[in-house]
């Protein structure tokens, strides 16, 4: 039996896989059946009845079991007496569907539209959806022309009802398609929207605290086919047709969501998702959607500043650059090249970072460069080079047969859209997800297996899993032998990580460890994800790399490792060699490794420092002191940050909406974004600033554009071969577009680009064997008394870029210590009480918040919040420590 079915829709034949819905089959031949409730990403519900079509099937002769034929020998088609919903009916062989060719079906759809319009207000002229409204569009195409309904007799609901801080509901416009409710249930796994009441009184509600409590709420405004849900932010911002839609990328985390900047008159009016099935599908998180207001902030730096005594005064680019050239030159000739250094943040583009390292390595002559400050210092990764997920990996499609092991990433906070995809793989498609972490996270509710380990034992857990794979005889021997070396030594080393020992260190049972190891090893596809809360431990990474290799889960699509790095271009920063000991393309520095950021930020480290897109001064008091002792500090920034305030020269940089460039996401996908709006004042792109500084120091580089820099990268960094802007920005082909891309419910168009992933070592047959590494994990800290203070990352943090997004501001936590109810009771405190948290003589005072998700013995104090209290206790790069908590 064939897996395909051929049917006829309005006279056109089409062949599609079995199980396809009529509405999808029709799309293949560009017959657009009108829909409201149907959305390709959600389960069909058949509620709105807009997609009614006439459906017939070949008649079968009861006697012979053969198709009945008419006089001309054609099969007789018997039509169902009632129209069918194309969105819930699957195709069958020989089916005949009439969409526009059936008068009855055309009338039925007219009727449905007339019904829908009976409750719809006539406020299109003031509605934000106007111009890109499916209801408007379909009314014009399929509507009855006029309605006989009595316009006085409409159901009234409050207008402009805030469902939360971010989303406004105009219930009168709602047509009860439940797309928003279903999105929250089926895709975001935050069922905080529902329909209350029934019949005509049914309306959308949210009773969560705070209202509409979800990181994904903005997407409901996209899937809403009318103007019922709008963002607080964009209300009356611009008419849809007046905006220019610019392809862009989100710059808030490592997922690399594709976005569209809706710009008008030189400002960003809104950010919407841009479809990329391999990255963000149709979604973006609320941080990405609402966190763009820094771009147009009046506080942006607009001109270079030069220190004159206590003051920073405005200067020209010439003055600023020549001063830098002069001072850096002088420091170099007096103290040598290694008395200079540079720190560049991972929100810079590949082009910026490439030029940055070239400036230091080739022109100044030092390896003193690093990107690891702030969050970047708390999580590193080199495993992507060898065992990163294979090219073509698509978390949006994996399901049954795939095991995903997540260690220490709170995906809903750290990489929201990755969360949707991993949770979806588990719930919707039956992948086995093992969520290992030190505390309860949102993903726990969507997975089959959770492993709760003691903080600090993640590396031991990874080694325990590896040892269990070996002892259960689950090593993919042939493959591992052909690709790796050192298996025997590794096995020897693993002797010390028997299940008993690991169970003791991690607090898990041996059964749980063995079962997880088996589920991972035996899966057809295995993906490992790790994040911040696993600890920044080379032993962990070596173990995970070996685990992927030993089980054969590397070197092919949907297999390998993903590090949940914190920034939009964290991966690119490593790729571009923004490390003191590694050159672009993961080449080790041969002889003279440079100083790390921490070393440069230690008093006496270097004398002159260039800091771009990083703010170490807020991270720690000791960094601040070190910065004060520098002879010369240059800061390249969007804002006058604390670090910038200490600088001798401050250079205004462009934000990513104001320029073009490329980022590499946490799955190693290199993607480009375009320029959307002009930069304020005299800001320059960072690569141009670095080029200018290089020029002062004698270089004669001629980069004219980001595109030109990328051209050089493709020449010099083999991983990036072939990735010039022409390829990176090419829109996908029409065929792939109709195959995979839907743009359901969104009426605007922009380019769909897929980006390019670079290939890992494990993917190459000809690469040398990968040596299996074993690194002894650090000794578990002595069993001190007290609570384990953990400093996780929150999506809404105190970072500068979010500070301007007023609508999100309310969601940024004030520093507070989150405790389990039982620990709070032991301490005799309740929510709102103050406690003193101390460790080795450092003490801070914060209010307590009793939080259901916190396990006993653990206290959470998120990092990156105002005043950085968590960092004071765990250190700027640390994750956790044992603390004493007392009622104050």
């Amino acid at each position, binding site marked *: 039996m064939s897996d395909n079915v051929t049917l006829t829709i309005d006279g056109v034949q089409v062949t599609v896989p079995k199980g396809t819905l009529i509405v999808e089959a029709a799309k293949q031949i560009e017959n657009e059946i009108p829909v409201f409730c149907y959305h390709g990403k959600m389960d069909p519900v058949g509620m709105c009845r807009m997609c009614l079509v006439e459906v017939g099937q070949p008649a079968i002769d009861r006697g012979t079991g053969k198709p009945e034929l008419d006089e001309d020998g054609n099969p007789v088609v018997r039509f169902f007496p009632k129209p069918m919903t194309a969105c819930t009916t699957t195709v069958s062989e020989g089916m005949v569907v009439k969409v526009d060719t059936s008068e009855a079906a055309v009338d039925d759809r007219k009727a449905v539209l007339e019904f829908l319009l009976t409750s719809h207000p006539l406020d299109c002229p003031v509605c934000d959806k106007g111009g890109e409204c499916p209801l408007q569009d379909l009314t014009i195409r399929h509507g009855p022309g006029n309605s006989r309904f009595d316009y006085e007799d409409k159901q009234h609901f409050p207008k402009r009802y805030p469902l939360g801080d971010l989303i406004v509901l105009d219930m009168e416009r709602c047509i009860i398609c439940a797309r928003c409710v279903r999105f929250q249930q089926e895709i975001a796994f935050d*069922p*905080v*929207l*529902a*329909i*209350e*009441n*029934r019949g005509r009184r049914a309306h959308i*509600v*949210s*009773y*969560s*605290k705070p209202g509409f409590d979800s990181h994904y709420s903005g997407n409901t405004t996209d899937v809403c086919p009318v103007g019922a849900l709008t963002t607080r932010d964009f209300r009356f911002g611009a008419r849809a047709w007046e905006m220019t839609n610019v392809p862009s990328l989100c710059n808030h985390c490592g997922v690399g969501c594709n976005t569209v900047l809706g710009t008008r008159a030189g400002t960003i009016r809104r950010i919407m998702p841009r479809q990329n099935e391999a990255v963000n599908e149709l979604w973006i998180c609320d941080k990405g959607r609402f966190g763009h207001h820094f771009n147009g902030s009046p506080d942006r730096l607009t001109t270079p500043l030069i220190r004159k005594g206590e003051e920073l005064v405005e200067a020209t680019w010439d003055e600023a650059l020549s001063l830098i050239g002069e001072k850096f030159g002088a420091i170099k000739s007096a103290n040598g090249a290694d008395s200079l250094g540079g720190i560049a943040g991972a929100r810079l583009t590949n082009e910026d970072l490439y030029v940055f390292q070239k400036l230091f390595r080739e022109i100044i002559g030092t390896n003193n460069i690093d990107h690891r400050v702030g969050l970047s210092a708390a999580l590193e990764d080199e495993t992507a080079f060898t065992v990163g997920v294979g090219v073509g990996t698509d978390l949006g499609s994996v399901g049954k047969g795939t095991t995903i092991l997540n260690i220490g990433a709170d995906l809903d906070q750290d990489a929201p859209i990755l969360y949707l995809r991993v949770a979806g793989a588990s719930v919707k498609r039956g992948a086995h997800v093992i969520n290992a972490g030190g505390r309860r996270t949102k993903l726990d509710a969507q997975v089959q297996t959770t492993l709760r380990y003691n903080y600090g034992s993640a590396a031991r857990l990874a080694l325990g899993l590896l040892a269990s794979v070996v002892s259960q005889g689950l090593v993919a021997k042939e493959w591992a032998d052909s690709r790796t070396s050192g298996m025997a030594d590794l096995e020897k080393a693993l002797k010390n990580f028997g299940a008993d020992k690991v169970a003791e260190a991690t607090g898990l049972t041996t059964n749980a460890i063995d079962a997880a190891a088996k589920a991972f090893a035996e899966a057809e596809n295995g993906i490992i994800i790790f994040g911040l809360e696993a600890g920044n431990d080379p032993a962990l990474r070596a173990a995970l790399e070996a685990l992927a290799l030993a089980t054969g889960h590397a070197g092919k699509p949907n297999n390998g490792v993903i590090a949940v790095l914190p920034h939009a271009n964290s991966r690119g920063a490593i790729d571009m060699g923004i490390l003191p000991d590694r050159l672009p393309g993961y080449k080790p520095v041969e002889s003279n490794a440079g100083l790390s950021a921490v070393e440069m930020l230690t008093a006496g480290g270097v004398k002159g420092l260039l800091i771009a897109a990083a703010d170490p001064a807020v991270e720690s008091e000791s960094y601040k002191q070190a910065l004060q002792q520098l002879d010369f500090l240059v800061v390249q920034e969007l804002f006058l940050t604390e670090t910038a305030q200490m600088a001798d020269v401050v250079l205004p940089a462009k934000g990513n909406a104001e320029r073009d460039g490329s980022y590499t996401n946490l799955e190693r996908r290199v993607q480009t974004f375009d320029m959307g709006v002009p930069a304020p004042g005299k800001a320059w792109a960072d690569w141009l600033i670095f080029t200018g500084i290089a020029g002062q120091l004698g270089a004669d580089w001629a980069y004219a554009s980001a595109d030109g820099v990328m051209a050089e990268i493709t020449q010099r960094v083999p991983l990036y071969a072939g990735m010039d802007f022409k390829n990176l920005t090419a829109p996908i082909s029409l065929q792939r577009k109709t195959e995979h891309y839907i743009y359901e419910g969104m009426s605007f168009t922009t380019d769909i680009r897929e980006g390019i992933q670079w290939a890992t070592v494990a993917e190459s047959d000809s690469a040398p064997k990968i040596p299996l590494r074993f690194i002894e994990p650090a000794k578990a800290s002595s069993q001190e008394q007290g609570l384990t203070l953990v400093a996780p990352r929150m999506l809404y943090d105190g970072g500068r870029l979010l500070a301007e997004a007023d609508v999100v501001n309310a969601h940024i936590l004030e520093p507070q210590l989150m405790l389990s109810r039982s620990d709070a009771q032991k301490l005799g405190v309740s929510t709102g009480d103050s406690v003193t948290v101390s460790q080795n003589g450092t003490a801070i005072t914060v209010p307590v918040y009793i939080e259901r998700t916190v396990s006993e013995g653990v206290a959470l104090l998120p990092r990156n919040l105002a005043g950085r209290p968590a960092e004071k206790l765990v250190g700027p790069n640390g994750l956790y420590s044992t603390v004493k908590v007392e009622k104050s």
Partner: protein
Amino acid sequence: MGWTEKEQQDLEKILKKYPADRKLSAVLPALYLAQREKNWLDDDDIEAVAEALGIETTHVHSIIGFYTLFRKEPVGKYMMEVCTDLPCALRGAEDFFKRLCERMGLGPKGGTTEDNLFTVEEVVCIAACDKAPCMQINLEFFESLTDEQIDEVVAGLRAQASNNGA
């Protein structure tokens, strides 16, 4: 609200009826339990149900809104629900309802008496059509009613309420 010990036990009994991973099934019985005391549900009651079943508060509200026997606004201690649907109306239920409202000192659409003891409202068919006029008082059937019987019943409930109050 928080459950009393008795309610906690009842809740556990209810939960036993459904598979362990299908706690959500208990939402209607749990709401009946939460509503038993005062005939309507306040925010705390709703929160308590959500917590007991481990579900979103929003979902509980949605359930309350869908089913007419749950109420989020205060009502009388005794809910008098009079059927005025077609079969009963054919036997004079509409007039009966009007008279009842008058006797209870309420307007023609019913409502709650001043002492907050009785709420009178019209409902659709309650499966007692052969015994019109009929009504339910706190879900107990009262059928083939005459005006005099009503007076008796009301007087009885008043007495019961004041005894309980004393």
